[in-house]
């Protein structure tokens, strides 16, 4: 097995949660020990992820690469690596594990071992998704995380958990079965499952279109893009706090990550062709998510629908194909994870106190829980992209990209930002200063554990908001690489912007150097 500097850091990140999960099953001690063991594993996971910060933006495309044969007969290998697209997603996943454990410390009281077992499996699979450089390995992790997430919703969820969990599972799995067909097709055409090798090849336009459609469906469901979003509010509302946090912070990012990792580099011509539709759907998601969020009375539902809108900005940024747009999108992926993750965590804390998620039952808290409201305010302002917070940077980059590409696209997306301000401020106003409906004994302010859960996220809100260049500097070289390869391939193919679809369908892949040499012989 080839590794980076002799230490397989990415494998360690994947294996550590698995080992911890097995330890939990073997130990089967009391609930407190279970929580401590998982928290310890989470902290260790964060420490293990620190070497990834040594990622060199100007270095090779994939770093921390690990490679070992898996099934040579079919060209499958255990191949992991990190680039600017996946780096922050992996770091975010590692960070979320200890925070989720802390956030569920008192929230989860039944089947505690199994709950933490699922959390650990999720973390392992999610890191695997972001690090996999073999298409089959990617699919293995992609599907493997469905099972623990399904159980998180189905076992520890709210009253309609059965319905929500089945809907989640059916939607996402049904979408990704076509992804499997695309993976098989890529192997036949490209001759390998290795993603870096597949990226170097070009495919005929007709093939790209079919492959794009198959992959985009899986990714669009995961994002989720309107109109494939209906599983999301149900899943979010019914999931326990930690489940919602993982869903928002990590799972939704897998869809947008899939677009960046596979659609743009592997099917560049099809991506360009489909871009108008994808942009239109993104804007629809932004506006739809915002409008529906505005009408919600359940705080969790409101944040869930706001996610549809926020993720619309991410897909919009991706399909602008400009460095600004795509870096805004990636930053927004990270930001949404931090901000919405924080908000869901806070809703969980509120639910523990009031046993209700209705705005009407949780009004006027500013007087009783100032610290809570302060942090809630931080995340809310970040969610509405207030200057100085992380989301502002991401959203502005996407909007700049949009205006630079086509002013109409920019104009169409702007109301989304205003809608976000409307629903978040309305929520904040009522929860903080609204007329208290009932004074409950439960209104106690944040405890030390809760502070510890939320402060890291709040710090990140300001850190990225005030010093975004650090993150952008790491991300940009990878984006430039993807976009320039994409343009070069499209040019080599002879794709022009005004070419009609029928003519595009005739575009065959350009010959590779080896093939041309063969013909000349």
């Amino acid at each position, binding site marked *: 097995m080839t590794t980076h500097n002799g230490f397989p850091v990415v494998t360690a990140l994947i294996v550590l949660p698995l080992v911890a999960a097995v330890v939990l099953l073997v130990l089967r001690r009391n609930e407190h020990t279970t929580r401590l063991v998982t928290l310890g594993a989470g902290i260790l996971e964060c420490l293990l992820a620190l070497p990834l910060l040594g990622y060199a933006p100007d270095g090779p495309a994939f770093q921390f690469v690990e490679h070992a044969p898996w*099934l040579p007969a079919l060209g499958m290998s255990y191949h992991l690596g990190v680039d600017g697209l996946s780096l922050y997603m992996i770091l975010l996943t590692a960070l979320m594990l200890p925070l989720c454990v802390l956030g569920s410390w008192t929230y989860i009281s039944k089947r505690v071992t199994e709950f933490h077992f699922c959390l650990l499996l999720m973390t392992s699979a999610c890191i695997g998704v972001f690090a996999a450089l073999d298409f089959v390995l990617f699919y293995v992790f992609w599907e493997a995380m469905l099972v623990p997430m399904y159980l998180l919703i189905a076992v520890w969820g709210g009253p309609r958990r059965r319905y929500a*969990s089945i809907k989640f599972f059916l939607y996402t799995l*049904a979408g990704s079965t076509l992804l499997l067909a695309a993976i098989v097709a890529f192997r036949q055409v490209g001759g390998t499952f290795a993603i870096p090798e597949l990226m170097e090849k070009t495919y005929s336009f007709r093939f790209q279109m079919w492959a794009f459609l198959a992959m985009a469906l899986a990714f669009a469901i995961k994002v989720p893009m309107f109109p494939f979003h209906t599983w999301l509010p149900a899943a979010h509302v019914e999931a326990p706090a930690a489940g919602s946090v993982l869903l928002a912070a990590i799972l939704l990012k897998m869809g947008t990550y899939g677009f960046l990792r596979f659609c743009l580099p592997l099917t560049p011509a099809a991506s360009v062709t489909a871009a108008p539709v994808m942009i239109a759907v993104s804007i629809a998601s932004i506006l739809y998510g915002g409008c529906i969020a505005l009408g919600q009375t359940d705080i969790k539902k409101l944040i869930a629908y706001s996610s549809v809108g926020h993720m619309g900005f991410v897909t919009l940024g991706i399909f602008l194909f400009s460095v600004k747009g795509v870096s805004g999108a990636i930053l927004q992926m990270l930001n949404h994870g931090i901000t919405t993750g924080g908000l869901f965590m806070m809703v969980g804390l509120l639910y523990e106190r009031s046993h209700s998620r209705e705005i009407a039952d949780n009004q006027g808290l500013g007087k009783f829980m100032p610290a809570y409201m302060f942090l809630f305010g931080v995340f809310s302002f970040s969610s509405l992209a207030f200057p100085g917070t992380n989301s502002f940077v991401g959203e502005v980059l996407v909007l700049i990209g949009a205006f630079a590409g086509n002013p109409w696209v920019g104009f169409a997306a702007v109301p989304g930002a205003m809608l976000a301000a409307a629903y978040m401020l309305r929520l904040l106003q009522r929860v903080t200063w609204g007329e208290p409906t009932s004074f409950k004994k439960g209104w106690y302010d944040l405890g030390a554990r809760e502070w510890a859960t939320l402060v890291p996220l709040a710090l990140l809100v300001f850190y990225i908001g005030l010093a975004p260049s650090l993150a952008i500097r790491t991300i940009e070289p990878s984006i430039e690489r993807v976009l320039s390869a994409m343009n070069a391939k499209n040019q080599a193919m002879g794709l022009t912007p005004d070419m009609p679809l029928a003519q595009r369908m005739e575009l065959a892949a350009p010959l590779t150097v080896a093939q041309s040499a063969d013909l000349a012989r």
Partner: protein
Amino acid sequence: MTIYLLLPELWLLGLVCALFVASLKGVKSVSGWLPAAAGIGVLVALMGVSARGEMLYATYRLDALSQFFKLVIALGFAIVTGIAAGKKDDADMTPDYFMLLALSAWGLMLLASCVELVTLYLALELSSYSLYALIPLRGQDRRAAEAGIKYILFGAAVTALALFGLSYIMAAKHTTYISALAASSWSFADAPLAVVGLTLFLAGFFYKLALFPFHFWCPDVYQGAKNETAAYVATIPKLGAVVVLVRLAAFVTPHMEVTDILAILGAVSMTAGNLAALVQRDVKRLLGYSSVAHAGYVMLGLAAGSAAGLSAAAFYSLAYILMNLAAFYVVCTMSVGGENPSLDDLDGLYKRAPALAMILAVAAFALVGLPPTAGFTGKLFLLSAAWDQGYHWLVIVAVLNTAISIYYYLSLVRHAYTGESEAPAIAVPRGALVFGGLLAALVLLLGILPAPLYDLAAMAGTQLHP
């Protein structure tokens, strides 16, 4: 010494004899030593994997394909005896019950090596006759009687059909050796009679495989048969069918009439099986329809007709028996009185028997084809092979069918994990749990590290299609 080449068969024959003697002596239970002896049989089969040779006027051949399937049959038989041995209090688990099972497995082992149509037919009958006796064993139950009659009647009719087909092949080709048949043309234009004959002959094996439209017996028989018998009937005889189909498919090149028929039958079979399974409440019936769908998936490899396709079919049948036996293990272990569990009986299984719930979840997710289980890798090989041969539509049908099947497999897990029940906890002996755990671990291991067994299957495939 050729006798050493036949060790797997001889070991099983030895078991049959030992069980026969035990039943004559009126021994009450053999569950003490039989699983161990069957386990040794797996080791013997493993040792025999490299055996090569031809005997009995070249009608019986030991090659990579036959030895691979013998290993899988030995493994499957060992698992079934292991499951059955867990039911110590069951009065029906007499030596003659196991003798009939072993006899059927022995017939299937012979079938794996037969390369001549008449011998093949005889081996098939040998494996079937003992099952005719086994299925109605739950004598007092009307459904068991019905299942037995259905199995025998359908079986007899289809056997007659196969024999009829065999006569056509003999008439048209003047030979019954597969190698000689493979050398001649199999297009409809050249040899219409032979193609019709082959189709009829194949029908016999489609029946064993429960491929649509030869599947009608399957859910009823599963439902009526004793749980342990159903576990056997649902898995091991299918291996026999697959091995013969793989052998016969090896002489049809891709995109001939026969492979196209296989592809269409496969597509219809998976769709019909999955749709029918959606509405089942009886877990055994559900698994019955699921096996109809899985027979369809195997057709992906056979229709591909390439070396990769045949190895994929061989590998998938191994994955299938492991995951299906894991599911049947749960069915057998949880039903105390031997009755058929329904979906509602699975409610709250996580609380009543956490380990069983876990094994059921692994089996169900493997049957869906979810990574990292053997079901996923097996399906991936099948899809790759079919796509490579241009059966794109079949691949799409297969993945869409996977999407349909999620619902009913998931409902097994849903009932086990999210259902609540007041039923008492299920006491499972530690030994039985370790056995079930091993089974689930095998399903996972074969998914994570498929290379060693896939290489064996690939050897079998390449040998047929160099």
